[in-house]
């Protein structure tokens, strides 16, 4: 099967999966107690203890249901949502009636995308050489130092790294602004803080993967045939060692795209993470379904990209 056919088949799977995910999310939220789909809860949030009469409350509920499309049966709400999702029109959210969800996403996605890509680039550009050096100089001080540096990234929690960086670079040294987004200076600390986690993972995987490859028979054969060390490592070992790294980068990137909430808050970066987390906290269901939808879409599309990239890295992989 050709790669185009393979991609097409995967795209169909993605579409079907997304529909199932939306249905499950919708039904789960509808079942969950204390939600907005439930009129009791709406009354509670509308101030049941206020002096409104039931009929006055009914006027409010009717208006609310109409605006958010809750005045039709659940199956129809789900169908309406899917039709909206296809056109990327998600309507207003409960917690922010001022803007549509697509507007909010359009405003925040470029920020999170830039932050995630820069953080991933930082992780790759530092992590891969660190892993390679550690593997090639195994059990020397260089190996220990490289792994120690990468360990810091995985041991220390992001929020601690973020706060420490602000104290050192903003409060004491006054080199960088504490927060904000847009100017290169403002991006340095959020990118490093977010990138340190994947950096550590990439470096350690790179080291292990390369060590594994270096012990393979075909590497020994390459050396035996008189290949120079540099040529053997770059042409034979590195390319194969990169395959597991691509597997890690994919999901990690999807995670970064949606999971940088704490860092966004800490550094006042107006990204998606903040939006999605507040959706859960505020029981903002239209936004919550949409964030699940977007997250699932990211993960599936990135996984597809990863699988396609495999083919270029390893010609033995065939698409079936």
């Amino acid at each position, binding site marked *: 099967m050709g790669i185009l056919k393979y991609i097409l088949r995967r795209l169909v799977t993605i579409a079907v999966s997304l529909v199932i995910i939306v249905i499950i999310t919708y039904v789960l939220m509808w079942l969950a107690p204390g*939600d907005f789909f439930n009129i009791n809860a709406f009354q509670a949030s509308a101030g049941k203890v206020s002096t409104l009469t039931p009929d006055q409350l009914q006027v409010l509920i009717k*208006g609310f249901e109409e605006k958010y499309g809750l005045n039709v049966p659940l199956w129809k709400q789900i169908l309406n949502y899917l039709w909206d999702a296809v056109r990327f029109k998600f309507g207003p959210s409960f917690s922010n009636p001022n803007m549509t969800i697509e507007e909010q996403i359009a405003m925040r996605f470029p920020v999170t995308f830039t932050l995630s890509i820069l953080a991933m680039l930082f992780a790759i550009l530092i992590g891969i050489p660190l892993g390679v050096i550690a593997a090639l100089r195994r059990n020397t001080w260089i190996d220990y130092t490289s792994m120690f540096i990468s360990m810091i990234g995985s041991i220390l929690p992001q929020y601690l790294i973020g706060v420490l960086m602000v104290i050192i670079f903003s409060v004491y040294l006054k080199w960088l602004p504490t927060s904000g987004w847009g100017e290169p200076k403002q991006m340095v600390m959020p990118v490093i803080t977010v990138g340190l986690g994947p950096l550590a993972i990439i470096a350690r995987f790179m080291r292990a993967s390369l060590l594994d490859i270096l012990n393979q028979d075909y590497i020994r054969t390459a050396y035996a045939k008189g290949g120079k060390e540099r040529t053997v490592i770059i042409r034979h070992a590195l390319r194969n060692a990169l395959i597991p790294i691509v597997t890690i980068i994919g999901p990690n990137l999807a995670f970064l795209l949606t999971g940088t909430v704490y860092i966004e808050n800490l550094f006042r970066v107006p990204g998606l993470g903040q939006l999605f987390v507040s959706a859960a906290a505020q029981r903002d269901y239209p936004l919550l379904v949409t964030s699940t939808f977007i997250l699932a879409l990211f993960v599936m599309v990135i996984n597809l990209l990863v699988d396609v990239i495999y083919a270029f890295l390893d010609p033995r992989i065939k698409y079936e």
Partner: protein
Amino acid sequence: MRKGYLLMFVLVSLLLLSGVINGQKEVVVSLPYWDTAGLTPYYWQAQHILAQGTIFEGLYGYAPDPKGLGGVKVVPVIAQSVTVSKDYKTWTFKLRKDKKWSNGDPVTAKDFEWSFRYYSSPKIPDLPAWAGPLQFFENFWAVKSGALPETELGVKALDDYTLQIKLSQPRYDMKEWLCVAQGVPIHRKTVEADPANWWKPGKIVVNGPYIPVSFTPGKELVLVKNKNYVGEVGNVDKIILKFGGLGLQAFQAGELDAAMINSVGELKYVKANPELAKLLKEDVMDCFWQGYQWSRGFDPLSDNKKLRQALAMAIDREKLCNEVLGGRALPLAKYWPSGNPIGDKLKDIPFDVATAKKLLAEAGFPDGKGLKTLVFYITGGGDPVVEFVVDQWKKNLGVNCIIENIESGLYWNSYVWANYTPDAKAGFTTIGAPMNNLEIGALFKNSDHTVWFYDYPVSVRKRIYELYQELDAWLRKDGGLTEADWKPLIEKRNTLYANFQKILQTEPEKLWKEELTRPPVWYEQFDELYEKWKSAKTNAEKTSYWRSAGRVLTDQELFQTGYFGANKTRHEAYRWRLRAVNRPFDEAIKIVPYGLQIMQDQYFMVPLYLAKAQWVQNPKLEGLMLYKFSWGPGFFNFKYLNMKD
């Protein structure tokens, strides 16, 4: 040579324009802020925190007053004078003639008339009407539901500078209500030109002292001085409101002019740093007490008043504030702190272990024996205050209480604010009792939950819960197509009518009788619906009238169940509440303590402490107003800001 002169000319011009040469340096103030969802003033999210007094102005607004409730007093802003009818239902305002919109248009009574009609119309179906003054306007609910046109709303511009507001019932605190965000006008032409985006920077036309020029949710809002503004305003040209982030560190790095202290750790850090310590400021959030309430379940245990008293008296609030809250709170054993006309009249709940033990024994549980384990419901990562309270009960009384952590949505919607929760065990939830704004009802600071939900025998509690369910069910009931469907309703109407007459004959409080007989009275509503049903043409119409009639009856049954099922004390508390809300604000303050004391003495809601607001502030900055109402602590009403040279 010529080129040199030209260059010099350009440079000098640029410098002059930038204000460097004539010494006019732009005054910029950066402050921390709640992340706001948008700037549309009629939504709850914008309330009075930002909209009122900073970017928009209404007839009345807040000015700083350290002695006032909430640290504010209500002052006329666009209103120049007001005439109130004897029945407090018609309010006629004369407006100032010098107020302008940021594009130079004059602010007139017609702007208010149009804006209030717009907010009330079905065009804004999700208006949080319970949070603003419009709910009291004549015909508001009919207009909102689409039954009457917007022109029937009780607001009229008698001329360009005279505005008349008619209310559906007397409201004595209208000035205070007009201070919240639904009380401000918006600019008609801009809104009509782009109804979805008019509020965005670049488009928005405001009548307040500052104009939003950039807004990035999650990051910041930038405001610049409105040059067309007429009124009191400080010397600040630009205000940058930053959302989130490490406030204290940003303050230290010189990026903020004030920062709130958010934890005991931060407070200790500030106090240990000689430079920061000098800039530390503190105030008490006296509009907001924190405490606990009994769970609204059906377990009869909470009916035992002596048990309630014993538990309330066994908590060392001083220790709680000093040791657990690290000096970031003041002990509070009544609903308002001393130092204001309400708090000064209230009695404290004493910390008295000996009396508490005695009461516990009298309640039937000497040294806690025989008392089952109580449950304290919390949400989130843990609650040291609750842990302390539970520990105090164990140590001082031998009472066992376990802490159960519940997911937040369920916790708030089903345990804290719900009317009753059938599966709630005998126990507690934490509660904050705030004022949202200076309205008379809010002076009771949630204590009136006692009136709405507590102090009924279990059987009555269960019935009230059922009736709430029935009320909701009527929205979706099928039927109402035949006379036979009406028969049980008519029978019920007659029974309820007879009971209603009994209440009217025996209820001693004139105000309560007035409230109950304010037209349209429930049975008049029911009879009208029945008549309409008879001439209805479609089945859908018929069902709709029948459902509405069912709701009217269920609502009345709900009231009567509560009325007959409650004890004398609860009735008395409600009567005091009525007396308070039927007085102008200043007089109501004198009445409130009587009702409040009765509710406090029931020990269903027990205050523990008042939070303190602590912050560091640039010593050159003046006029920072602390927001003490329910969304606080934070800063608001930025027009008073002034930066000294």
